[in-house]
């Protein structure tokens, strides 16, 4: 390998000892497994070394450098495992002559190996250290470049990024975050995260933050509100990630927040819209249902709840007469009042639709609380309301349900409230009634009655009866009032007081009214021939809603033509409040009918508010005094005679403006006589004749013709 001059004289395969020694040495190394070379390659090496070694051995006292170089050559061939040296020396000991010089030469080989190993080790250590320095520098540069990229990302990001340490102190924020919250970057550093609260924060978010700082969770995502420096509120989509140190302990929290204030407001608006009534701004049916579900879900065994189900009385009429704008304004005002009334007491009020409202008492203290609430609601509704030129007085009816909250069912509650409300209406409106489970059947019947009306008409369950109106001057029947009856399949015969209210509320009254009008006219048209000697008129009640039907005049004209009834034989009865509130088109219609020759009577005169000055300009022919007034006539024994004076005044008033007067509900002969004495024109009532069906009319009319029960031809008026 080295110094070819020295080795050339001896070796080159000619020396048998050298050949043997080179081969033995190579095999020993290969078998020891210390080399990464094939046997042939190792032999190439040992053949180079051995002649040199033998050359030194032959010359005692010669330079030992060649022997040392052989030791170094082992190292250079990567045979750095000390076992190689051991193996090599053993082979040399076995094959070289013994003696001191031989030992010295072997020691030189070992020394050379040691020196070579030391040199190689130092060189390799230097080499690997150099590589470490280069790698450090390179990784450091990459880290700096990476940091620069991250820095650019951090600074230039449109999303807000903030970093806080494990104590919650903000240590770094980017410009986007500072801008989002309205601070400078410097102002924000030093903020304490647990202080960045907002009242809308659900408690669990701070629990999650605490758990993150304990290292229990690594990521949290939520929507959260923050106060800006100017106290405005921003909503952000917030992601917080935990950064741990090398030991895995929480070190930093990185918060990334994206401004979603607009989206949040939109969502809030949408969800508010979904749960609130657009007209009044009150919670709607969905929110009410949601709240009930919450109450039920959180109810304990002792919990009670209650609802006041409120419906305005006669709202449909207001809508029909004054228009929907006025109706809407009225609803807004009522909603506002109910809202304040409920909120003052901490209750929810919702608009269930139309003119129906519900007040929810989530934790009821008992019926007394509900009663007080219902009274309060009735009171705020009753305060007169000005809508444009109108000053309206409305009343409401309320159905109250108070029940255990646990296991309560929304549908059951609403149904109970509804039927109770209906009962309150039926009981005269403007009042509240409590749900009474004992009268469930009755309630349900009333409730179902309403729903059954349209079918009943189709099935022909309605029929007419007629009650005679008899003239006091001649004792003869002048006309007959047509009254409707309902032959209910299971409830039997029902009088109008059971179903006219519901029919008015549902608007079914128009259809029913038309039916009654047609039937009555058809029947009356036959009377001219049937009852010779008298032209009996038929008197038909006209509901307010009918009076507002634009087709009313045409309808009546057609009916008269179809039935052949003379207009003078038809009288329409309207209540005075209907007439008094009538303006515009309905009044025109009544005038048109009056011009045709149809009579118009004011029903129940004196029970409502009458504008007496206005009365004379109305197309009215007759007044009907109600049973309440007539019933007050108790004959000569009545000392106060107050009722008599009132009736007297009304009759005089009517006559003064040329109206005839019919007294209803006459039940005694004394009343008949007294009315006759006061100058009343005609009477009607059980004392005269009970209502009867059309086919019974012959008998009734002929009996009346004999008129034994009437005072006979009227005496001269008392005043004369």
């Amino acid at each position, binding site marked *: 390998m080295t110094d070819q001059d020295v080795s050339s004289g001896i070796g080159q395969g000619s020396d048998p000892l050298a050949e043997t020694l080179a081969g033995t040495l190579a095999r020993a190394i290969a078998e020891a497994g210390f080399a990464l070379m094939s046997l*042939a390659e190792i032999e190439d090496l040992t053949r180079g070394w051995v002649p040199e070694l033998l050359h030194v051995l032959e010359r005692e006292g010669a330079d030992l450098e060649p022997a040392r170089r052989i030791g170094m050559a082992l190292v250079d061939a990567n045979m*750095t495992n000390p076992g190689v040296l051991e193996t090599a020396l053993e082979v040399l000991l076995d094959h070289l002559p013994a003696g001191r010089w031989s030992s010295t030469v072997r020691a030189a080989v070992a020394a050379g190996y040691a020196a070579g190993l030391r040199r190689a080790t130092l060189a390799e250590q230097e*080499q690997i250290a150099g*590589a470490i320095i280069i*790698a*450090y520098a390179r990784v450091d540069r990459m880290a700096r*470049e990476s940091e620069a990229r991250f820095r650019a990302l951090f600074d230039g990001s449109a999303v807000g990024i903030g970093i806080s340490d494990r104590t919650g102190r903000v240590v770094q924020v980017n410009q986007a975050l500072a801008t989002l919250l309205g601070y400078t970057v410097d102002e924000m550093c030093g903020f304490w995260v647990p202080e960045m609260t907002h009242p809308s924060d659900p408690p669990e978010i701070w629990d999650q933050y605490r758990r993150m700082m304990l290292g229990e969770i690594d990521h949290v995502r939520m929507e959260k509100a923050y106060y800006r420096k100017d106290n405005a509120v921003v909503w952000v989509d917030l992601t917080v990630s935990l950064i741990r140190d090398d030991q895995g302990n929480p070190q930093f929290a990185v918060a990334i927040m994206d401004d979603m204030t607009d989206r949040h407001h939109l969502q809030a608006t949408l969800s508010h819209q979904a749960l609130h009534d657009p007209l009044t701004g009150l919670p709607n049916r969905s929110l009410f249902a949601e709240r009930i579900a919450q109450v039920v879900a959180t109810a304990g065994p002792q919990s009670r709840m209650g609802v006041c189900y409120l419906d305005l009385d006669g709202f449909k009429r207001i809508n029909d007469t004054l228009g929907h704008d006025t109706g809407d304004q009225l609803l807004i005002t009522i909603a506002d009042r109910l809202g304040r009334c409920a909120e003052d007491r901490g209750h929810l009020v919702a608009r269930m639709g139309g003119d129906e409202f519900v007040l929810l008492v989530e934790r009821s203290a008992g019926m007394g609380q509900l009663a007080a609430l219902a009274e309060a609601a009735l009171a705020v509704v009753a305060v007169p309301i000005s809508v444009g030129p109108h000053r309206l007085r409305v009343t409401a009816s309320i159905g109250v349900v108070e029940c255990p909250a646990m296991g309560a069912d929304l549908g059951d509650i609403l149904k109970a409230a509804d039927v109770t409300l209906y009962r309150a209406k039926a009981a005269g409106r403007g009042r509240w009634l409590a749900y009474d489970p004992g009268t469930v059947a009755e309630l349900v019947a009333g409730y179902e009655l309403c729903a059954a009306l349209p079918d009943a008409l189709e099935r022909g369950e309605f029929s007419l009866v007629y009650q005679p109106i008899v003239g006091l001057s001649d004792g003869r029947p002048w006309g007959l009032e047509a009254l409707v009856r309902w032959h209910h399949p299971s409830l039997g015969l029902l009088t109008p007081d059971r179903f006219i209210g519901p029919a008015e509320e549902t608007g079914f009254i128009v259809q029913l009214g038309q039916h009654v009008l047609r039937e009555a006219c058809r029947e009356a048209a036959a009377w001219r021939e049937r009852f010779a000697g008298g032209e009996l008129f038929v008197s038909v009640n006209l509901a307010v809603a009918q009076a507002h039907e634009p087709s009313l005049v045409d309808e009546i004209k057609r009916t008269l033509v179809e039935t052949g009834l003379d207009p003078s034989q038809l009288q329409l009865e309207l209540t005075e409040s209907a007439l008094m509130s009538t303006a515009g088109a309905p009044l025109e219609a009544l005038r048109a009918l009056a011009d045709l020759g149809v009579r118009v009577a004011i029903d129940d005169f004196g029970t409502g508010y009458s504008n007496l000055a206005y009365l004379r300009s109305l197309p009215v022919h007759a007044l009907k005094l109600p049973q309440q007034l007539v019933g007050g006539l108790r004959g000569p024994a009545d000392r106060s005679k107050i009722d008599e004076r009132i009736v007297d005044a009304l009759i005089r008033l009517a006559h003064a403006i040329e109206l005839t007067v019919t007294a209803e509900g006459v039940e005694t002969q004394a009343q008949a006589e007294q009315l006759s004495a006061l100058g009343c024109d005609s009477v009607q009532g059980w004392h005269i004749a009970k209502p009867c069906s059309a086919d019974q009319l012959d008998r009734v009319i002929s009996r009346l013709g004999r008129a034994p029960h009437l005072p006979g031809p009227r005496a001269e008026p008392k005043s004369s």
Partner: protein
Amino acid sequence: MDHFRGVRQVDLPSWAPGSVDISQPSAARVYDYILGGAHNFAVDRALGDEVIRTSPNAAETMRVNRVFLRRAVHFLVGQQVTQFLDIGSGVPTVGNVHEIAQKMAPESTVVYVDVDPVAVAHSEAILEGNDRAGVICADLREPDRILEETRRLGLIDFDRPVALLLAGVVHFLSDADGPGRSIARLRSVLAKGSYLLISHITLDQQPPEVAAAQRLAARTSTPMYPRTQDELKAFFGDLRLVEPGLVFIPAWRPDAGGVVERPEQTGAYAGVGYRG
């Protein structure tokens, strides 16, 4: 060679820097230590000694693997392959591919790939002045990046036959790392006439104490994942294994006169696949 967990997170973007932490052992330097080199530190030697203690065959397996690589490069040059892509090359001190190949065929080109920045810097020092060999710092789990950076060096023409060397590296990847996917991607660029070399530890035919030692080693910071012969064969895909197939390392084309006794004791397979 260095695929220690924690050195690099696969989910980091590829431009995230690696790290240099000489307080942690490096597989490349442990390998160097066991092969008798001094390119290592106390922490590497401590782990090397631990490996030798717990798994007595390990040191022998590493030497055998190195000798096999030498034989295989001889074979490949003999098959007229002159382009080598050596992934997991480590600290290429002893019997490295470029020396062997360029000694036989001076025009041979070699690209070394390692994930350890120190091994890469070291390789650069060794390769200084050799314009037919280069080194890149990349991870076997990022085959596309390996291919991209290899092409950028301009030393390997993938239109011509290439020898792809995966000597003692694939067993540092767990199944979750998807070694099959990486190898398939690399295989896909091999032109006709190319070769794929794999050597890999196994528990096939190993005595129970070796399996126990292996399980112990798996709990250290440098776990290795032995695989069965069938699993390893799958890595060759549609390549045809050259004679003698996938065998225990010493049995793969031993040198003439070389003695092969109980080759399974090495606990590692080697094989070379050929794309015909």
